[in-house]
């Protein structure tokens, strides 16, 4: 497949904005992964001598501390790690479920397609929040569950996109050729349909990651998501919101990190779409 990615790769590299965004994402992710080890503190350590302290080098609290004296640098990066994990896992779930569902519905068509789309329409009608709350209540609180439940409702749009693309691919002669060659339906979907829908799928996935992170942050802000002492960017922002006047950095640090991450992911997603789009239509 490598030959097919050369041209889009070149186009992406030529897009300065996307390259910078990619760089930023890489830096932020590395910080999230590696950063906490650089600090002498961990996420739960309470430093009573530096409660709500300003960011500074002297006391090694580079991003300051919160109301309980916990180091914000470590907590922010740890929170970022959680948010990213949610984003990735949930995206992966929505991707695999969405692509399979959409490809099957689009390819089989007819009554099966109509039924499958009806199910999606019904699910779309349900407010996401209630669904997540419902699942949390039934199955108890756990991070894994959170990831899966967010992903499980996130696949709806992916399925729609894949189905739409599958419908147009189905008309193309190479699909007819595959049928005429004696390929089974499963083989056609896996080897012929899916590889040709990947373009929009990848783009949409990159744009879903920020959406999911934001959604998780929102849930956590409401108190439905990550629980103490773990934090996600959302919970940190929630805490910071209360301290806005007295200790603004408690809000600004995680908020800034989240904003920068989301912005970069969005720009990168746009860049990917531009790079892949020309190839698709060509």
């Amino acid at each position: 497949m490598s030959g097919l990615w050369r041209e889009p790769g070149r186009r992406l590299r030529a897009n300065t904005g996307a390259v910078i965004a990619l760089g930023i994402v890489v830096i932020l992710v590395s910080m999230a992964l590696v950063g906490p080890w650089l600090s002498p503190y961990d996420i739960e350590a309470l430093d009573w001598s530096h409660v709500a302290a300003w960011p500074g080098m002297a006391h090694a609290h580079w991003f300051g501390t919160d109301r309980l004296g916990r180091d914000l640098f470590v907590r922010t990066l740890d929170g970022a790690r959680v948010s990213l994990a949610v984003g990735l896992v949930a995206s992966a779930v929505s991707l695999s479920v969405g692509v399979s569902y959409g490809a099957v519905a689009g390819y089989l068509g007819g009554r099966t397609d109509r039924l499958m789309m009806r199910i999606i329409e019904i699910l779309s009608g349900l407010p996401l929040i209630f669904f997540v709350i419902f699942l949390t209540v039934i199955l108890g609180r756990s991070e894994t569950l959170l990831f899966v439940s967010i992903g499980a409702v996130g696949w709806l749009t992916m399925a729609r996109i894949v189905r739409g693309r599958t419908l147009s691919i189905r008309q193309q002669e190479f699909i007819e050729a595959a049928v005429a060659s004696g390929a089974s339906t499963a083989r056609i979907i896996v080897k012929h349909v899916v590889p040709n829908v990947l373009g929009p799928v990848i783009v949409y996935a990159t744009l879903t990651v920020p959406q999911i992170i934001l959604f998780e942050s929102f849930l956590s802000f409401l108190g439905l998501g990550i629980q103490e002492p773990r934090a996600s960017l959302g919970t940190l922002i929630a805490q910071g919101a209360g301290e806005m006047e007295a200790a603004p950095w408690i809000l600004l640090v995680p908020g800034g990190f989240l904003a920068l991450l989301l912005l970069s992911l969005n720009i990168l997603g746009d860049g990917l779409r531009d790079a892949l789009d020309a190839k698709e239509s060509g």
Partner: protein
Amino acid sequence: MNDSLLEVRDLSVNFGAFSALTGVSFSLGAGETLGLVGESGSGKSTLARALLRLIPAARGTVMWRGVDLLSCDSATLRRQRRDLQMIFQDPLGSLNPRMTVGEALAEPLEIFEPGLAARDRQARIEEMLERVGLVRDAARRYPHEFSGGQCQRIGIARAMMLRPKLLVCDEPVSSLDVSIQGQIVNLLMDLQQEFGTAILFISHNLAVVRHISHRVLVMYLGRIVEEAARDALFAAPAHPYTRALLEAVPDPTRAPAGIPRVADDNLAAAGEPPVGSADPSGCVFRNRCRYAEGICEREIPRLEPVSAQHAVACHRWRALATSPDPTQSAVREPRPA
């Protein structure tokens, strides 16, 4: 008379209320090439697809070596596909853009000979690439890196991987340059010689059909209007539509640049096929036919024998057979140098 490999009886296809194909019957023997000629709306592409059950038929049977392809279960149908392959009009479009040529050629083997070792599979792929006139290295590349003619060779290679008994070719050279068309046609003829494959060759281009076919069917608006051995069709066409087709082929050696020819006068066929599904009563061709009379409006003509191996669906063919052959008057001698 060889055993018929393929027997089509009364094949009909409808798209809603519109009949794209009505009561088509013909047979094809092993190693034989049947040319199918028709213009837009003739139903020739519909026929190709209905034959292979790529689209549903309303009526009819397609007997292939004792099995009715239209009514058998899908497992049996898939097994038969091994010997029924197809080549398409859009050479690039018929290849999956995300698969290398090698992967595309490997697919028939993966489906029907799954036990084949990877090395043997590779050997067969390379052998077939060379056989169709491409380099072995082509296996690593993607379809968009090749020209139209080369893509069609790839399509032929893919179709021939399993040495099918029948090759259905749907306008395989129409989108290629005139100077390249011959390469593909000659290749098909060579492959037929070597593997004994029967060919159903669909085209609107009479000259190409003339080179490759043993027998020819002429279709108009979903029906067969004439059926004959190749030489008989071109020498003495019986149906007015066939005559019109032959007259319409431009002859470069004529060059009557200075002489205006009055439109529609010489041709057996005026106007064009109707837009939409206007289904006239009686003969489908009568609205355009110079020779149409009362009976043509009342009764649908059935295929009647003109001679051995030559049949025509026309009420007036006997009267026309005695009149001077319009193809002769349309085809003038080349000007002396």
